[in-house]
């Protein structure tokens, strides 16, 4: 397998991010199309499954990977009227509840071994009405960190109901507490969002955590070693000291699949994209930042950042950064290191500092002539104009995915070995930030973003 060479990326940076995107997004990519029209999910952003009662099913299934591989997975699927036995999806749904809700999650188990759910950060979790507790067998061996939903038998799937009071807002992980190392690696995890009482547009119960609900995102980070998944599928032994992650995932996808819309038809079992869209800050039209909820269910730390922008880290693990008297202890940070089992809530504001405008504030350098530009494979996301909200001609024969003069920046784990699919760049734990022009600019230029 060819080694991933970070050098490609570094050189790309020198050429400028926009040209980089031209280089790396060529190929089989078909993003940018409105492929989610058939679904009710927003094209981008957090897809909430609202509670407080949920019915999930632990199931196996297959996901597809950007290089054409597929992987056998275990995951928590949603039980619905149309899918009473649960519909496999990866990762598990983002469960959204309100502070104070009595959350109830019934887990049916269609797998051949016991599974369970743990809720780090919650207290007093009950299982079938009794307090959750680690489980031991008759020999005193720990079998599970919590009560299990029993393996499916001829009598049907196992079932268990977990309940707890979502007593504080924030971003939380849920995952399997049984044979944890294997089952979490197999994909049994998801995210839980608790919204502060009465303030669905706050991250926490404080006004300075207000965000724009149209720009709320979650990125759940995981690693995937196909050897483990093959071993489990084939029921053969796997030595986890030999673990070598080949796929690095955001919301169960690797780049470039990460920038596909939510519920993209080409990824029928991986419904969650992680493209971040936002518009420039405006005190009147767009005063509140985007909120990105990072969740790390993997074994490694993942250092995350978008290019060109600090974020404001406002809390972690379901706790606002605040002093004993409510002091705002949030801080600006470019790179957020999300450790294993941790969540971070970070707000992002994109500010159009220079306000370049072709008529009133032109960029004071001579722009390259379009005939001097070439795009790899004749494909680009560049608009042809450096001005936000403007499009211009591109060299003849060039295809642009640019819709309305928007900008793109990369947003990724800066552990650059993770920007790869099966050790081959470019891919992995990587997504894009899309900066749409202000609505007024769209109106004035006639380039409407959708």
């Amino acid at each position, binding site marked *: 397998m060819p080694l991933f060479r970070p050098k490609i990326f570094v050189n790309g940076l020198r050429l400028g991010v926009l040209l980089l995107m031209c280089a790396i997004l060529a190929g089989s990519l078909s993003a940018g199309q409105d492929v989610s029209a058939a679904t009710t999910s927003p094209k981008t952003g957090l897809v909430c499954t609202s509670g407080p009662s949920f019915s999930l099913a632990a199931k196996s299934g297959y996901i597809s990977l950007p290089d054409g591989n597929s992987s056998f997975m275990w995951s928590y699927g949603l039980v619905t009227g149309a899918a009473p036995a649960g519909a496999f999806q990866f990762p598990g749904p983002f469960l959204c509840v309100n502070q104070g809700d009595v959350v109830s999650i019934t887990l049916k188990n269609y797998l051949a071994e016991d599974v369970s759910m743990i809720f780090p950060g919650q207290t007093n979790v009950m299982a079938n009405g009794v307090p959750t507790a680690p489980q031991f067998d008759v020999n005193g061996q720990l079998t599970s960190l919590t009560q299990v939903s029993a393996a499916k038998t001829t009598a049907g799937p196992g079932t268990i109901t977990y309940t707890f009071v979502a007593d504080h807002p924030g971003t939380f992980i849920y995952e399997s507490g049984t044979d*944890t190392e294997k089952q979490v690696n197999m994909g049994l995890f998801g995210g839980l969002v608790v919204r502060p009482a009465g303030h669905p547009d706050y991250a926490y119960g404080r006004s300075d955590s207000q965000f724009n609900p149209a720009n709320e995102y979650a990125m759940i980070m995981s690693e995937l070693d196909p050897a483990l998944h093959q071993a489990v599928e084939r029921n053969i032994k796997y030595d986890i000291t030999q673990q070598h992650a080949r796929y690095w995932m955001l919301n169960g996808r690797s780049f470039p699949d990460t920038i596909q819309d939510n519920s993209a038809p080409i990824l029928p079992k991986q419904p969650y994209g992680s493209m971040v869209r936002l518009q420039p800050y405006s005190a009147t039209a767009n005063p509140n930042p985007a909120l990105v909820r990072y969740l790390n269910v993997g074994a490694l730390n993942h250092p995350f950042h978008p290019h060109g922008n600090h974020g404001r880290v406002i809390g972690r693990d379901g706790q606002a950064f605040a002093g004993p008297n409510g002091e705002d202890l949030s801080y600006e940070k470019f790179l957020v290191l999300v450790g294993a089992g941790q*969540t971070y809530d970070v707000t992002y504001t994109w500010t159009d500092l220079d306000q370049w405008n072709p008529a009133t504030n032109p960029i004071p350098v001579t722009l390259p002539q379009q005939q001097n530009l070439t795009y790899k494979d004749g494909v680009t996301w560049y608009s042809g104009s450096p001005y936000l909200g403007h499009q211009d001609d591109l060299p003849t024969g060039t295809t642009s995915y640019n819709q309305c003069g928007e900008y793109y920046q990369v947003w990724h784990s800066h552990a650059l070995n993770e920007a790869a699919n099966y050790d081959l760049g470019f891919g992995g734990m990587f997504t894009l930030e899309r900066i749409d022009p202000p609505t007024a600019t769209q109106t004035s230029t006639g380039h409407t973003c959708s």
Partner: protein
Amino acid sequence: MKVKLSYILGSGIVLMGFLALIFATPLVLLASSPAAITAAIPVRTAYTLNSCASPCTLYATTGTIALPGITNPITFLGYSTSPAAGSATLPGPTIVGTASSPVSVTLVNNLPNSALTGLSFPTLSSQPESTGLATAGTKAYTFTPKAPGTSLYEASLLVAGGKQQVAMGMYGAIVIRPADASKSAYGTGTSSDYNNEAVLVFSELDSNMFTQTSYDFHNYKPNYWLVNGKPYSATTSVIAGSPNAKVLLHYLNAGSLNHSIGSLGLSQTSVIGVDGKALKYSYKMVAETVPAGSSLDVLGTVPSTATIGSLYPVYNAGNHLDDNGILYKSTSPTSTIKYGGMMTFVNVPGTSTSNVTITPGLTNGSSPVTIGATVTDAATGTVGGAELFIDTAPTAASYGTGQPLTLVSGSSYNASYSASALTSGTHTVYVHGKDALGNWGAFASATFVVDKNPPVINGTVTRSNRSCAAGTCTANVTINNATDPTPTSAIVGAEYSVGASAAAAGSGTAFTITKVSTTNNYNTSGSPVAATNGATVWVRVKDAAGNWSAAKSFTM
């Protein structure tokens, strides 16, 4: 990078087999091991701080550790408070000092094979040993820590082979207590009070480093994930807590990788200090990364809903919960799932109290009652005491202020309790015990009745069937309408005396009476009373609590 381990360990590899003979059973782990493997029931032995208070003498020597999946215990290099070869613990003893007071640690080099070694205290002292002590060499290290906190000590990296010595186990924790001697991490008023504490040193280990005669650090691939030198499946380090108790966990990472440590079910888990310094603003978290060489002081709260036996996992949030890479159920769906790796539990021990008895259950308070109870402690196996309270189960602040019970035998405790000050009525006795670590358990209770109100003979006392001979008569007595006011207890006895006035209560001649059905009248049922013909006979009745009524008389 290639290191000939024989320089470090030399014949230690050969020694290993020899040690295995000395330690006849691989279950014998470390000298200070808080727990060993048992075949049954989860090991729930209480955590104890393996401490070495300043001035502390540490012997650099060998130790052994049994790892699941490896036949013979492996030999590591470490520290011990004993000069004996093989007595080192993993991690080394926790050096305990006090802020603003000199800390003195004396190192004695008892390493095999003429290896040099020295100590360093990276966060506390800038003078690590650079030359290294020769075999049997001794050096005293003294420094005065300015502030309370937790940090690591380790073999000096400046001495030849020091890096390898650290990787092979030569590390431990230093806990500096606040100068005000309060039971807190950083002193009174710093919101760092705790009820129980534990030092948890996290590390990872590549067993090949210990079993190969030569090891290339390029090949470092950990296969064991340890808390205090043990993987979960080998031993369970258990930390005592009780409902609402604050547990101070000193996290230290002595390994080479960063470890994110999470907990499940604990509330208010906060990082209150980092690298030996208190944080101005503590922060709450579910899982926090402890970088290699770093330390965190973490304060958690046991939920109020905890019950005796509750277990709260503290574990590697990156899920290094295996031993030697083995995922149970990876070969057969029917095999037993087993956990290993970097995990321990915060345990809610507390004692279990049952079978509270009060003898007698009805008293007039004139003599003490005996209160008994059965007190056990499943978590530590050792009951540290028991106490009783009357009528109100107190809040935790008052635990330890009750009347103590003493051990009779086995798990039976009792106390002699004077009820003389109690008012008449039903009273509740609350008994609970504490474990060997001082964690008070839940109460059990029982009630008893104090009756200080004497019965009353409301009607007359009359005689019948009088029979006289030589001036002395006997007769049966009828006591009319005798009752016992609240708290009502049965009228169970009577006495009489003869004379101008009644004898003192309780000093007369007893006679037996029987209640007449459906009335409050009582008749003599045994021997009749005897008196001189015409004498005044005084009669009292007694209730079950032992109170005597006022006397009433009749003329014989």
